């Protein structure tokens, strides 16, 4: 408090100065706090608490409907591919990991290729080329104990850290084939 | 490396980048020089 030293000399002025400063501090501080509060409130306001979006858990039939290889019949309706290999079955989400376009499957090349920026994936979801920074998602799946159908949870997504290799961005396959992202059926 | 001019066109695209950038820069500088001259001549004409 530098003002206090002058108390004897000019008590009145220093007190006035003190109250002025305090008033300014409280006033500006209050205004800025209020504005900040409004800003935070507005930002929170823009994040809706209730969503009216299509359901993200759905059934796709029994496992024996899907043979070895990539099945693209649910791509239009559900945005997924059902893939079966020698060990079992998994579901990949048909959303490119680069910028969200829908890749196309090329049966002859056994590759997924994205039309937007040319990302290339193999049937396991590994990135063989193009700008995609991560491998394709696999959705959480389980078997309904009542009717034996596969239940897909679209928002439950396996997203392991890929490793850069000379072939592309790879994830060790055995590590991916675990519950609940893989059905040994 | 069988044919360097075949897809994915490495060299071709590289050359296109360099030449394209140089052409655009040349046009940019060229327009500035032209307008500098043109506007000066306008002044002297009057």
């Amino acid at each position: 408090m530098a003002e206090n030293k002058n108390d004897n000399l000019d008590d009145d002025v220093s007190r006035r100065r003190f109250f002025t400063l305090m008033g300014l501090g409280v006033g500006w501080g209050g205004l800025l706090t209020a504005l900040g509060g409004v800003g935070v409130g507005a930002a929170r306001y823009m994040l809706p608490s209730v969503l009216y979006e299509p359901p993200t858990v759905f059934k796709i039939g029994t496992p024996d409907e899907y043979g070895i290889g990539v099945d693209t019949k649910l791509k239009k309706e559900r945005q997924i591919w059902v893939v079966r290999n020698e060990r079992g079955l998994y579901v990949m989400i048909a959303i490119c990991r680069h910028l969200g376009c829908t890749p196309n499957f090329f049966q002859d090349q056994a590759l997924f290729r994205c039309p937007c920026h040319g990302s290339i994936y193999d049937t396991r979801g590994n990135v063989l080329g193009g700008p995609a920074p991560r491998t394709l998602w696999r959705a959480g799946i389980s078997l309904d104990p009542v009717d034996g159908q596969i239940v897909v949870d679209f928002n439950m997504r396996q997203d392991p850290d890929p490793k850069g290799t000379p072939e592309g961005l790879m994830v060790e396959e055995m590590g991916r084939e675990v519950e609940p992202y893989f059905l040994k059926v | 490396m069988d044919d360097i001019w075949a897809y994915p066109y490495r060299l071709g695209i590289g050359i296109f980048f360099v030449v394209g950038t140089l052409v655009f820069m040349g046009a940019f500088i060229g327009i500035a020089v032209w307008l500098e001259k043109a506007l000066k001549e306008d002044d002297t004409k009057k």
Partner: protein
Amino acid sequence: MLKLLQKIRSIVNQTQVFKSIFRHGYPDTDANRALVMFSNVILHLHPVRVRRGALKIKFTWCLGGLTFLFFILLAITGVILMFYYVPDTRRAYNDIRDLGTVIYFGSLFRAVHRWSAHAMVFSVWMHMTRVFMTGSYKPPREFNWVVGVILLVTTLVLSWTGYLLPWDQLALWAVTVGSKMAEATPFVGAAGPFGPELGRNSGNDMAFALLGGTVVGQSALLRFYVLHCLALPLITALFIAVHFWRIRKDGFSGPL
């Protein structure tokens, strides 16, 4: 014939109605030519006199003014288009198709809106290039250059938000790609560097705030509609006003 027209004009100029609107005679004398700049709200964007250099097309290429013209064309045609458009995912596409097929001149107004948008992006970009080339951003006009950059950004964002409204394939994918970029923003996007570390997920990140959901759907369409038709045009108009005000205050940078 010419005499007759002049006579009619002089009579019209004398009427109370004409005087009440324009407050002075037709600008054919120096005094009235100065007065018109003071008393007309649109013309008073100009000074009364300019230096000769300001008339040279080779200097300005009319680019700033044309950008403003395109903005006005966009505002007018935009309001016209709004009469038939409902921002509802079930209706939007059909409304736009109706404009092109069954509504008189709907196709024309939509085409003018689209071409003006392309033209505005082009002319605002060229205007910036021109201002750089003539060094017109140098003191004391630094701040007006900053306002200009803001206007460039709002122009681009306006174009981008307008792209979603027809709800066709181009719309959906242009906005999907854009919202994925928002998701990849460092610190505030769920897929961006350090985003997950700071607790961002698909339910609280930047893309979620932009789309009002996790997919490009009804809430995204409504948000983009409000941004495109109300919020961004207002912001742009405000900055255009500041831009013009500063041009008048800072003066013309050209020679002579």
